[in-house]
């Protein structure tokens, strides 16, 4: 990743950005997010198979924003997240420099949003193959079987909200579950409250989820909650022929009306 390091170095040295968000070696063999502000420290940047976290979540974090302009190491899901965040006016394109990394782990030069859009257009935007397989298996189940599957999984939920916090698209400073006047869903972590929470999360991400799978990875009790949002991504694609995060001007599928929208689901 010589190119990644030298580009990061160059950007910090020339003060084009104030922070580089990337990955570094963590504890016990893990990789973890790194925030580099000093050009002499860019050598600690790494990129390998362990670098899977969706770093776009940090673009809306207060303390990261304090630094100023940021360069961010971005694989396809991160690029798509950035597109969504710009579309939803949470970050501004002029405040971000994208250090692209291809699916093969090679540095790619992303000189601006248009280049990123062109790159995204060349990629497969469906759900990752492994997750798509699991979804296909779930879709073959009867309604009762599906319900049983999810009840078993969701009974494990402890409502730590790691799924929410890990998601770049869950940037609300006050989540619906944190309101208690009224209480939208039961706050308690029981089967009812847990089920409501995961349905609420999936619905809020419909048309916005870019299938990175970060929510499922973050879950400390291994609930495959990313399958819920990925299923929504699939549905949105089927009904509206839209994949989230392909341009910086996405209109929200679930809150806009187009005359040619299919209405087959409300028959």
């Amino acid at each position, binding site marked *: 990743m010589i190119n990644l390091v030298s580009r990061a170095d160059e950007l910090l040295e020339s003060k084009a950005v104030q922070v580089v968000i990337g990955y570094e070696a*963590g*504890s*016990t063999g*893990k*990789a*973890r*997010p*790194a*925030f580099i502000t000093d050009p002499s420290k860019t050598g600690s940047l790494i990129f390998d198979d362990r670098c899977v*976290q969706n770093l776009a*979540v*940090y673009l809306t*974090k*207060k*303390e*990261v924003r304090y630094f100023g302009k940021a360069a961010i190491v971005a694989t396809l899901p991160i690029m798509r997240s950035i597109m969504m965040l710009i579309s939803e006016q949470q970050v501004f394109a002029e405040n971000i420099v994208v250090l692209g990394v291809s699916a093969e782990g090679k540095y790619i030069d992303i000189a601006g949003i248009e280049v990123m859009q062109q790159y995204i257009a060349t990629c497969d935007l469906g759900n990752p193959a492994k997750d798509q397989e699991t979804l296909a298996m779930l879709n073959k189940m009867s309604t009762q079987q599906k319900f049983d599957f999810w009840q078993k999984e969701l009974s494990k939920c*402890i*409502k*730590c*909200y*790691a799924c*929410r*916090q*890990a998601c770049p698209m869950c940037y609300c*400073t*006050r989540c619906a579950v*944190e309101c*208690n006047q009224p*209480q939208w869903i*039961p*706050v*308690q*972590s*029981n089967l009812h409250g847990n089920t409501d929470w995961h349905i609420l999360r999936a619905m809020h991400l419909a048309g916005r989820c870019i299938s990175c799978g970060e929510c499922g*990875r*973050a879950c*400390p*009790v*291994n609930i495959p909650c990313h399958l819920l949002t990925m299923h929504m991504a699939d549905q949105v694609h089927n009904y509206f022929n839209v994949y989230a995060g392909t341009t910086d001007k996405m209109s929200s599928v679930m809150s806009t009306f187009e005359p040619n929208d299919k209405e087959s689901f409300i028959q």
Partner: protein
Amino acid sequence: METTSKTIRKHSLEKLYASLAENRKMYAPVAEADNRIGYKYNPDFSEVIFDHIQSTLSVKNVVFPRVENVIFYTNNKNDSTVTDVDLNKIPEVVLWGAHPCDTAAYDVLRSIFCWDTKDEFFAKRLEKLVVIGLACHKSDAHCFCTSVGLSPDSTKGSDILLVPLTNGDYKAEILTEKGNRILTDFSGLFEPYQDEETKLTHVEQQFDHKQVTQHLKEAFENPFWVENSLRCIGCGACAYVCPTCACFDIQDEAKGKNGKRYRSWDSCGFGLFTLHTSGHNPREVQSQRWRQRILHKFSYMPERNASLGCVGCGRCSRACPVDMNIAEQLQALQSI
């Protein structure tokens, strides 16, 4: 009470388990379908495991459940009736096979819940609990009990501690009156302990907690907190898997005229933590909440509760999606 050491043969353990299960709920570790280790109520003895390193969740829920109902109420036209929870319905539970870090955590929780006013829910659950601990013969890179004054065979919090022997049997250390009652009731299952060799893991000490506590006194404004928590995403995973985290939220939930008030786990990592009704939050960014977490466990608790707020189980570091490794940070804090 003076500790008595006995030996319990492997085949007698099953008998002890079955006898205890006759009139108590058993809570024991099992292997879950998704490769995690979890605790479950009344598993069959054949399911119970003895060689696990750590369960994903701690066993604090036995005394501090995820959701604890506090009162029930009915709102009528002109008045309201409030019903207390019948604490006598809390069942007798045997916690079986919990590691010393987890059993020691009950002492920490007691120092919080029974600090001044005794929390009757917690106290009743603890009173109804018998703890049969299991010393560790396995550990991993996240374990750091020896850095917080404990060890793989600490007896803190256990009524009986089972220590694995190299021959496959167990040494049983009878530590409390509750433990003694079990020994008396099932004396036929125990044999005299004859200095048989124990099998324990070695956990390397990573830091000196007294030095950490000392350094934290001067560390409030240190840039360390921001530098080392930029990656923290502010979820509650660390607090919810933690055996000593005791924060809770109180909520009312009603359906028609009937409702209940309950308390459920909460976390200092969340943005709502210490948010005032005015909108001001003295801990408005994540680094301040992370600092609170460390200071609470390693500075405020030693000062106020005379106990450390950490037992070195390493669960938070294992569960953290962004590698906020607590032992690594404490090691660094020792020398700032």
